[in-house]
Every structure is written in structure tokens, then in C-alpha cells.
């Protein structure tokens, strides 16, 4: 028997003992010679690792909480052979080693991030339209009473929609009394034009271009994709972002990515060609907005923040103009006037700042 001293706590009281280890069968007994104290028999397999720090090693007992034995320095080899090995980084990582595990994790992490970015576009078309519609309806309701309605204004909007969206792909296209230069597509195929946009536009052709673009988002279900991406990312990142801010604000600020925007521009150009509306005005509209981007009004131009303007986009609309294309204005002068006056003329419409969202 070795005279190597262990320290020991029995887990019942805090009394510290200096003990010798006497082997017996598959395990051992701990004995304190000075006091004649002897502990209960312990199997080698009962031992758990508590820790090894600063040259001190400590072991516990799997069935007796607080039971500890330990030593400083190296244990005698005949005892060390029976002692369990401790965890370092965690059981799974120890099994592979730090660097292989880190490598595997890196690959998995990259796949997860890639999946979170790419999956929404694949999932969105699988969401039943009825769900999306119901979701959009519950989000929007009557938009806080902010939709502008006058008989002539409604007729003008219908006339515009009839040209850009003859197949009625969008479930609803409405005009809201909000003085921001913006237009949004909401879940459920709803497009909302803001009055600020109508006022800022100098011709109905410009509004037709924006409407065609939003129709592109409806056709490709970009809103659903964006929502799924936002939800998915917030889940992956442990809730970060999922709790922040308003949900509707989130939708308003959704950006769909460059490809989706380009595709939506393509839809706008197609629809305008079918309706014999010139894309030239949309191009100048972009140019005008772009020029003002740095001005004080830029803050109000929310459409710009989610639809970054690039010369490419402007040129694309400009290039789509066919000389002698037999274009006609998107709306008659009377209809255009009625549309522009719609929000101001509607006595029942809620003011933008009047009520909380």
C-alpha cells in the first residue's frame, strides 16, 4: 500500500481529511490513520472528474454529491491508471479534437447561414396563398382608416390598375393618406401607394412605373420571402432582431435584395409595354429622386431606402423606351387630377399623424 496522501471530503460535513487509499476488489477504501476513520468502499467506476487546475486534481463520486478526493501533483501510477479522464472543451469536441471539431462547426455554420439566406425564396411559393392573404388582412385591416376614397379618385385608380394589372394579380391596390414618397407591397398581394408619392410624381406614367414594380413583388411573392427570411434569421441568431421594433415597420423596411428588385423592374417594364405606357417618365422620376437624395427631403423618401437607386436601374427604364412606340399617357388629364386630389378631397380619411399605427 502506498503512503500517498489524498485529501477527502465525505459530502456529509465540510471536515477535511488527509487519507490513504487502500485497494480492495474493483475499488478502494479511504482511511485516515490518525483518527482511525474509514470511508465506505468505492468502485473505480464511481469516480467522476471534478477538475484539474493549478497542479491540483479533484474527483467526485457519481452517487454521492459533495464526495471529493484529490491530490496535488502526480498520483502514483498504479492509482493514476484507474482515474477517469476529464473533459476539456466538452464531450463532443474532445472526441474529435479541437481543430477538426472547429472545422466541422465552420462548415455547418456556413451551411446554416447560407440556408437561412437562400431557403426563404424556395419556401415562399409553398406557403398557401390563402394563409398569406389572411395574414396580410390581419396586419392591415383598414390601415387605420387612412385609405383615401372619392368616387372620381377611385375611378382614376381603377383606370390605372386596369392598364398595369389587367389580370388582377394584386388583390387590392389602394391609396393611403401618408405624406411619404413610398409604395409598399404587403403580404396577401396588397399594394399601397402613399399620397406623398402621387404628389411627388409629375405625371401618371411615373406612378404607373412604380405600380408595375410593386406588381413584380406581388407576382414573385417577394414579401413572403422577405418575411420568412426575417423570421428565420432572427430564430437562427437567437432571437436577436425578432423582438425589436414594430412588425409592420419591419415589413415597410423589408428589402428584397438586388435580384428581386431587378426582376420587379422587369415586370414593370413588361406591364408598361403591354399597356403602351412609356417607361421614359419612370426613368426621369428616378433621376429626380436621386438628385434630391442628399437634400432635406431625403428622409421622407422611404421608397429610396428600400429601393436603392442606381444608374443601372434608371438606364434600364430609359433603354426600354422604343422610339415611335405609340405611347399614350397612363391616365387622362382629368383622371390624373382626380387621383392627386383624392386624399385631400376625402373628408373621412384619417390623418397620418392623427392616430397611432
Amino acid at each position, binding site marked *: 500500500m502506498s503512503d500517498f496522501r489524498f485529501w477527502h471530503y465525505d*459530502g*456529509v460535513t*465540510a471536515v477535511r481529511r488527509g487519507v490513504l487509499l487502500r485497494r480492495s476488489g474493483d475499488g478502494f477504501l479511504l482511511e485516515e490513520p490518525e483518527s482511525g476513520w474509514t470511508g465506505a468502499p468505492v468502485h473505480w467506476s464511481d469516480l467522476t472528474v471534478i477538475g484539474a487546475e*493549478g497542479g491540483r486534481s479533484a474527483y467526485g463520486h457519481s452517487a454521492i454529491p459533495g464526495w471529493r478526493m484529490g491530490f496535488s501533483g502526480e498520483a502514483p501510477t498504479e492509482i493514476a491508471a484507474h482515474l477517469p479522464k476529464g473533459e476539456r472543451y466538452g464531450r463532443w*469536441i474532445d472526441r474529435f479534437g*479541437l481543430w477538426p471539431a472547429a472545422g466541422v462547426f465552420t462548415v455547418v455554420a456556413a451551411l446554416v447561414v447560407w440556408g437561412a439566406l437562400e431557403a426563404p425564396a424556395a419556401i415562399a411559393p409553398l406557403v398557401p396563398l390563402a394563409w398569406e392573404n389572411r395574414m396580410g388582412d390581419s396586419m392591415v385591416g383598414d390601415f387605420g382608416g387612412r385609405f383615401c376614397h372619392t368616387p372620381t379618385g377611385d375611378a382614376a385608380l381603377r383606370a390605372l390598375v386596369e392598364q398595369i394589372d389587367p389580370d388582377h394579380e394584386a388583390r387590392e391596390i389602394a391609396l393611403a393618406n401618408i405624406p411619404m414618397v413610398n409604395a409598399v407591397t404587403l403580404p396577401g398581394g396588397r399594394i399601397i401607394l402613399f399620397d406623398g408619392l402621387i404628389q411627388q410624381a409629375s405625371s401618371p406614367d411615373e406612378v404607373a412605373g412604380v405600380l408595375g414594380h410593386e406588381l413584380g413583388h406581388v407576382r414573385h411573392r417577394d414579401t413572403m420571402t422577405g418575411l420568412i427570411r426575417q423570421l428565420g434569421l432572427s430564430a437562427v441568431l437567437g432571437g436577436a432582431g425578432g423582438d425589436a421594433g414594430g412588425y409592420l415597420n419591419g415589413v415597410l423596411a423589408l428589402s428584397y435584395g438586388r435580384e428581386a428588385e431587378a426582376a420587379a423592374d422587369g415586370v414593370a417594364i413588361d406591364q408598361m409595354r403591354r399597356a403602351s405606357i412609356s417607361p421614359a417618365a419612370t426613368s426621369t422620376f428616378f433621376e429626380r429622386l436621386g438628385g434630391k437624395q442628399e437634400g432635406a427631403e431625403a428622409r421622407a423618401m422611404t421608397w429610396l431606402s428600400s429601393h436603392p437607386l442606381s444608374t443601372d436601374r434608371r438606364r434600364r427604364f430609359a433603354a426600354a423606351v422604343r422610339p415611335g412606340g405609340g405611347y399614350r399617357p397612363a391616365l387622362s388629364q382629368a383622371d390624373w387630377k382626380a387621383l392627386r386630389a383624392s386624399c385631400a378631397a376625402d373628408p373621412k380619411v384619417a390623418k397620418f399623424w392623427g392616430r397611432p399605427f
Partner: protein
Amino acid sequence: MDQERIGREGFVFEGNWRAYAPIAFTNLLLTIVTLGIYRFWATTRTRRYLWANTRFIDDQLEWTGTGKELFLGFLMVLVLIGGPFLFLQFGAQALILQGHAGIAGLLGLASVVTIFYMVGVARFRALRYRLSRTWWHGIRGGSDNQGFGYGVSYIWKSFVGTLAAGLMIPWSLMSLWNERWNKMSFGPHSFEAAGDHGPTFKRFLLFYLLPILLLIGGTMVAMMRTPEAGSAGPQMAGAILGVIAFVLAFYLGLGLIALAFYAKFFREAVDGLSLAGLNFHFYARTKDWLLLFLGDIALVICTLGIGAIFLQYRHWKFFATHMGATGEIYTDELTQSHTKTSRHGEGLLDALDVGAF
């Protein structure tokens, strides 16, 4: 026998940052490649090191918590707080848009109160969790209280704290500290917390004095400057500089007062804490706290942020080196704790807390 007499040096920190560095860096690596999930195992490794290098009287502390427990705690927080929170967020938005602002307001209030309650319960349970995983001489701490009552106290005492222009805040903080600790135990002994908020009150009043002092100082400076009226340009610049200095002085002063108050509060709170024959003390003065935080800032900035992985180490070291205990403890009377232990860790709270108790 079995009696330990101790002076101020009851707690000794024996770690050093070079020995901790391998833990810190591998933790950082694994946390990054697992998209943050390893964080819980990283915390556990860090605590194992810090506890094992903190000696109380004659033996080191032991941390037996696991990464899995912390991970489970995190998942519980996600379900208990995150779930209802998201639901209310979504629901409230939809309700307001559909014109049920009253119901939405009620639900919103309910969600705020619920989350506030949960934060209180979480604070309590985090302390309980830490004590139940902290061992010394083979004995652990804990509490049989679930902390649900503490959550209620947390709500009403925090509310009372805001009354009378916040003059009740010191009382509210100290009363909650005492309530928390009075329900904790180590081995068979209950903690007794009798912290007095009175001595902290003078420093708390400085919060109210600062704006007045600044106003007087600012007025005097302004009056001294006015007679030498030169051209408008330099005068404008002077005024702007004055405003900037004023704002800086305000925030700097506020931060210093907060530090001074907290230093005093923590000393008073710990001084009021005892366990059987032991009285605890905390010796850090405002200057020490200031140096700690300036050191933190310098460390993080000089290492371009990487030094942040050493903050937990620094904070624990600060805590352990300024902690003291006087009195006596009988190890044969310090028997095993029979408090219940929960299977889950402290949820998100470990991210918010400065590390110590």
C-alpha cells in the same frame, strides 16, 4: 478542532491571465464557429477556471454547473418570455391596425408586466443556480424557494422606487437585495442579509445636485464671457463649445455619481451579509471601480475588441480580491445542503450580469 479563524484575507484569487488565455481564445473560436451556441459551454469553462482559482480560507471553490444546463435555461427563456412576447408584438400590431387600440394597449401592458415579473424571477433563480453549483469543502449552497414570490416583490418594490422622483430607489434596491439573499443558504446555514440603504443615500442625492451645480457653473461661465463681445463667429463657436462641454460634464458627472453610489451600495449590501458565524465584507472603493472600468475600456479598445474575452476574468478577479470575510466557521457543523436543485441554468441573465453574485 475543525474551526477556522479568518481575517480579511478570507478570499484569495490565485489565477493569472496567461493561464486563462488558452481557455479564453478557444472559447472565442468555438463560439464563433458554432454561431454562438458554444457560449454556454464557454461560460462553464470560464467559471470552472475562475472558481478553481479562488481560495476561501484553506480550499478552492468548485464550479459544477454544465453547459447543457445553461443551454436548457436559455431555451426556457426563449419559450417563456420570447414566445409570448413575439405573439403579443404580432397580435398588438394587428389589433391596432384593425382599430382595437384599447385591447392592444391592455395586452401590451400585460406583456410588459409579465416580462418584468419574469426578469425578477430570473434574477432570483440565477443566484440560486450559482449557489447550488458552487461547492466548498464538498458542501454546496442553494435555496428551496422557487423565486415566484420574489418576482412579485420585484414588481412592486421597483414601482415604489420610482415614486417621489426616484428618492426611494436606494431603498428599493437594498430591500430587494436583502430579500433575495435571505432566502439563500449554504450547507445547513441560511444567509442573513441586513443591508441598510441609509448610508448610500447621501451619494444618491448627488444625482439631484449635479444638474443644479452644472446650471450654476454654466451660467457663471456664460456671464463671464458675454462682456468681451467680438465678432459673431468666434462667439458662436464659443457657445457651441460651451454646450458640448456642458453635455460632456453632465454625462461624465452622471457616470461618476452612479459609480460612487454603486460602490457604496455594494459595500453596504455585502457588509450586511452573514452566514452562521461569518460576516462578509467588500472593500472596493469608488476609485477601484473607476480603475476597473477604465481598464476594461482601455483593454477592449487597445485590442480592437478582442480583449473583451478577458472581461469576465477581470470582473471576477476584482470581485474575489475585494471580497473579505471575518468571523469563524466550524467545518463539522457545515453539513450538506438538502435544497432542491433545478436542472436548468440561469437563462439569458448570465449575459446581463457583471459575473459576480
